């Protein structure tokens, strides 16, 4: 039987198709301004890749902030439950996960059986999200893809004290004016993000191993800064942006089986 999970995030929409519990296709594209269209495109693209028709799908679960706007019949499950399910399927021992997406960052505590036992999310603030890093990379005129690795070269990270995206940006401009190197400023920014995430995550019981997901997981600078903060290895899945959609597809499968 075939199942699908579609995760419509603020920046990207993802779809995963499962056949007999095995991933047979995945897609990812920009959400843009229309999350309904993006979810449709993500699903269609994954269907094309898998070479199947929508009618062949037994059940679909939609997740992510755009979950309520999909135009195909789908059950809605929050990204918190879906990420936990997806990550647990990849790393059965995981106890804590940190998801850093475009606008949201969250920390989730998992029980021994992979169930969510507690979670915490950022609120109306972009600090500690992908958007924050985008703004900072732009302020430093560094490509986002190089931003993280650049920070790894620093021996003397600049101090970025503000956790507000707007104020941190002006702080970055001040550091540039003071003559600090891009490398050191980048390291300071990554350290500030890690501090923010750490402070948020400590509101739930944090246990090892810790897995990080979301687009920000591609940023090695954030990974290392978080490892320093938490004092332990941060595991990154091969496809950190897809764990929500994977979890959604797995939930579709388990619900169909228990129905």
């Amino acid at each position, binding site marked *: 039987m075939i199942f699908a999970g579609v995760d419509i995030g603020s920046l990207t929409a993802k779809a995963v198709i499962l056949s007999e519990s095995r991933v047979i296709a995945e897609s990812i594209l920009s959400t843009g301004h229309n999350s309904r269209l993006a979810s449709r495109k993500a699903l269609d693209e994954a269907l094309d890749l898998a070479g199947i028709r929508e009618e062949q799908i037994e059940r679909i679960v939609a997740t992510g902030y755009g979950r309520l706007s999909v135009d195909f019949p789908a059950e*809605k499950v*929050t990204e*918190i439950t879906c990420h936990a399910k997806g990550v647990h399927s990849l790393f059965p021992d995981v106890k804590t996960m940190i998801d850093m997406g475009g606008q949201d960052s969250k920390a989730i505590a998992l029980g021994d059986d992979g169930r969510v036992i507690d979670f915490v999310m950022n609120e109306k603030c972009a600090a500690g999200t992908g958007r924050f890093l985008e703004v900072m990379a732009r302020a430093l005129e560094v490509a986002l893809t190089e931003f993280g690795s650049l920070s790894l070269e620093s021996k003397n990270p600049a101090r970025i004290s503000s956790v507000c995206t707007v104020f941190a940006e002006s702080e970055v401009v001040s550091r540039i004016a003071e003559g600090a190197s891009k490398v050191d400023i980048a390291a300071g920014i990554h350290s500030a993000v890690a501090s923010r995430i750490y402070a948020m995550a400590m509101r739930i019981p944090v246990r090892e191993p810790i897995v990080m997901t979301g687009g920000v997981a591609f940023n090695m600078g954030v990974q290392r800064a978080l490892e320093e903060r938490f004092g332990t290895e941060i595991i990154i899945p091969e496809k950190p942006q897809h764990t929500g959609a994977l979890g959604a597809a797995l939930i579709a499968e388990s619900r169909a089986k228990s129905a």
Partner: protein
Amino acid sequence: MGNEISKTREAAANPTEYAREWKKRTGRPVIGYFCSYAPVEMIHAAGALPFRITGGDREIARSGAHLQQYCCSLARTALEGGLSGELDFLDGTIFTHTCDTMQRLSDIWRRELGLPFHADFILPVRFSCELAFKYMLEELKDLRSKLELFLGEVSNENLRGSIEIYNKNRKLLSELYDMRVASPALVSCRDSLMCVYSSMIMDVDENNAFLGKALEDLRSKEGNESCADDYGNVGKIPLFGSGSVMNDWEVLRILEEAGGTIVDDDFCTGRRYFEGCVSPEGEPMLSIVKRIWERDICPCKHRLLDERAKRLVLQMERSRANGVLFFLLKFCDPHFFDFPYVVRALENRGVPSLLLEMEQGSVSIENIRTRIEAFMETMRECH
């Protein structure tokens, strides 16, 4: 609930409209108050409408010049309402000393709004010694004489009459809550909290009449809950609500859509407002103080170190709730200081809880929806 409840819904959804209309209809004064410790029966006995002021969906424009961003949204948006003219039907305000923000808001309110009547009801911080009790009684006497200067004599006879009417209101609300605990599907939590809120807005006699009819209607539906309310409340997960002011109807709607419902609470716009009656016997002033003294305390006040946690656990278990939802207003220090030990008491009993940091008027609704839904998912263990 049936049509009887529509008036209470209307008043709860448009409190200022109700007060303005009431004033026009009766020609009598309206006295605003902020806190569930305010002696509403005394305001009523003085011939005025006691009107509970809360924050609301107001963009901060004028109040930002008086209150910093680290003050709670209740104070900031309420002041905005005062400064913008939205509360221009008020003839006066009574401030009850609870937290520092409220105390200072009183000064700003008096100076900036310049209403004909303004009074502070200064409560003691510790509700635990005889001296504090005596002090509270003296404060209440002082408030009475200030009210009398403005509105004329408040006789003991009138006061007793008002006590009786308010006791009736409290009993009706208490019955409604008992009914919900026994049969949560009968009425939505949104409607039941709207009923409590409406009782702080509407003329109490009018409110009693509506509540009485609404309860009759509900009683007739007992045993046939599936058609009892508009929200399809059957099968929802019962939760206990904890916090201060909770009149965000949209958030309650989201909770109900997500499959949860609040069967009991300790909100100061919920059970804490109507809990306990004033004794009709003896000296009325003393009886009013006794009720305030014995009631579930606000976190701004102190009695015993672990009283709030013990009380929450007891109330939660009595209501047969499966978990607790904390709706705490951002920057509300008294509630947040209590929060860690209260949560620990719940954790020790294996009770799941979710903290939602609320802001009057500007809550990030999709974010709240995700949190509530995720919490319901963990409660259902659906995955």
